[in-house]
């Protein structure tokens, strides 16, 4: 059959073409690495700003309060906060959250705006297979969201088919960060 022969020939020719394309597309770049470090993430969130890292030690009451607000486990007693000053003006705060997705870990940076809402969420490390990583646009859903009942999967945050565990873990991380930020904001200034 002429059609059958055409299919077979097309497939074989296509296979060769794909192989050649793959080699040309990725071969020259094989020695490069793509990493997003903490410093790169902060630089992308706060360009031309001075970022000050502060180590904060939570009291047991503060840990309990943060857990209550986040509806999650109590946070670590040591918190690392990155506050940005841009042109003499407070530009926001960044936190890093390291958590398990399925069996492996993800690290995200959550930037909180001066008014206590999510500025951006950035993935720094994702150890699960890449199929479980939502698209960039999914993370954009968090922008401008405060800590409230809407900040949940299947509420204001839409789920992702095939990456539900990542979506749930990331949403929980953002809630943890906003809860922590609120607790730190409730601290009375030192006399």
């Amino acid at each position, binding site marked *: 059959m002429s059609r059958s022969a055409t299919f077979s020939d*097309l497939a074989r020719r296509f296979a060769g073409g794909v192989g050649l394309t793959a080699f040309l597309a990725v071969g020259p770049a094989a020695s490069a690495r*793509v990493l997003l470090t903490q410093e790169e993430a902060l630089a992308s969130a706060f360009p031309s700003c001075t970022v000050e890292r502060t180590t904060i030690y939570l009291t047991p009451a503060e840990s309990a309060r943060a857990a209550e607000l986040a509806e999650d486990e109590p946070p670590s007693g040591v918190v690392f906060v990155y506050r940005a000053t841009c042109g003499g003006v407070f530009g926001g705060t960044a936190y890093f959250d390291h958590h398990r997705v399925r069996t492996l870990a993800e690290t995200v940076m959550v930037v909180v705006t001066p008014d206590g809402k999510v500025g951006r969420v950035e993935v720094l490390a994702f150890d699960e297979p890449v199929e479980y990583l939502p698209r960039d646009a999914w993370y954009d859903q968090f922008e401008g969201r405060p800590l409230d009942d809407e900040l949940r999967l299947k509420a204001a945050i839409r789920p992702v088919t095939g990456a539900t565990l990542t979506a749930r873990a990331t949403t929980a991380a953002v809630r943890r960060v906003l809860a922590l930020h609120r607790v730190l904001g409730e601290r009375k200034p030192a006399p």
Partner: protein
Amino acid sequence: MKIRPTIGLCGLILTLVLGSLPTSPLWAAEDPATAARLTELERQIAELRAQLAGGSDAAPTPDAAEIARRLDLLAAELERLKLGEVAVEANTSLYGYGPAASKVYRKAQGFSIGGYGEMLYESPNARRDNGSASGRRAEIDFLRAVVYFGYKWNDRIVFNSENEIEHATTGGGTGEASVEFAHVDYLARPEVNVRAGLLLVPMGFVNELHEPTVYLGAKRPDVERVILPATWRENGFGLFGEAGPVSYKVYVLNGFRGEGFTAGGLRGGRQKGGRALAEDWAVVARLDYVPWTGVTLGASGYVGDAGQGTTDSAGAIGAGLTIFEGHAEWRWRGLEVRALVTRAELDDVARLNRKLGLGPTASIGETLSGSYVQLGYDVLAGRGAAQLIPFVRAERYDTQDAVPAGFARNPANDVESLTFGLAWKPFEQFVVKADFQDYDNGAGTGVDQFNVAIGYVF
């Protein structure tokens, strides 16, 4: 940008926190190097505590500024341990990528493991739609027990596999052990990556995402088992990637083995990667478009021969096969809607029928078609981890939409079904599903059934 550390003086709190490090679940599995760093941290803390308490004779007591400096160093070390590789200085050769574009699958090196499983209870009606005895009995089956193994050589080259035992045993011919996929990926850049090995054919919703917590219903949709024969995997290689709202996959695979086709569909023609005949190859391509988060529109196509060297008196039987599929999904709050339509066309069916000795109503379909629509709503959406999802799914398929001249369609292969039920997930990785399926076919021999399933992923 410049990062400046500031210092807190709560040494005892830090000591307590650092003392609890080994109990942290994410750190507990770290390597010996991490354990050594923790030990060193503990030693330094003990030294600091001793100095705070009055000090040893061997070393002079440091002043408050020195203690604060050391605490800051320890805090920085603690953060590095928490963040792992992220805190390490990067090789920033990114071919012009901004950091925001640099989201990559990265684990330094080593194994990964995961898995899923499902158990299914099926209770069919004792009677067919026409009142005759169905002859079927209730059955409970540990349908699948699956383990994923992966290995990462470096940030670029990753292996992943799915290894499955179906029906709990391979003894007595009731079950089988299979590799569902096993491939090596070369992750070059988000837009272009290379994959080779035993690949899942990227058509429809379920073939690639077939874990029981992902789809509604105790059983997978019939259209994605009969017309698109999930779990459908073949050996090959190809490209995949995404750019903005668009993602794609293009694979070259060994084709079906047409001698396995039946009146019931293409399923028997899968070669599953084991000593697959490779006389004929196929190309499959898939494109998905996400215009808004929660909305996916996609399509895929498959073109290839299934003859694999089969001959008759007229020569080689090509058995060219073309399959098209379109799908759409909308997820908004608790709502999830899916729709899929597919159609397959096969050449040389009359010759294949004669070659296989198939009778007048047992012809392989020259055209096969199917579609379904599914609607579910999580009534617990936004209230926590638990989910309770009533759902309904309407399906239609015909494995003999058209047959060659000289053969007749069997109306029993023209099927409509309505499935409605409930899925309950107490947490994301475990599901209990129950549903009822009302089957109708053109011959009036449909058998309704009730199903219950449990499924897990880890």
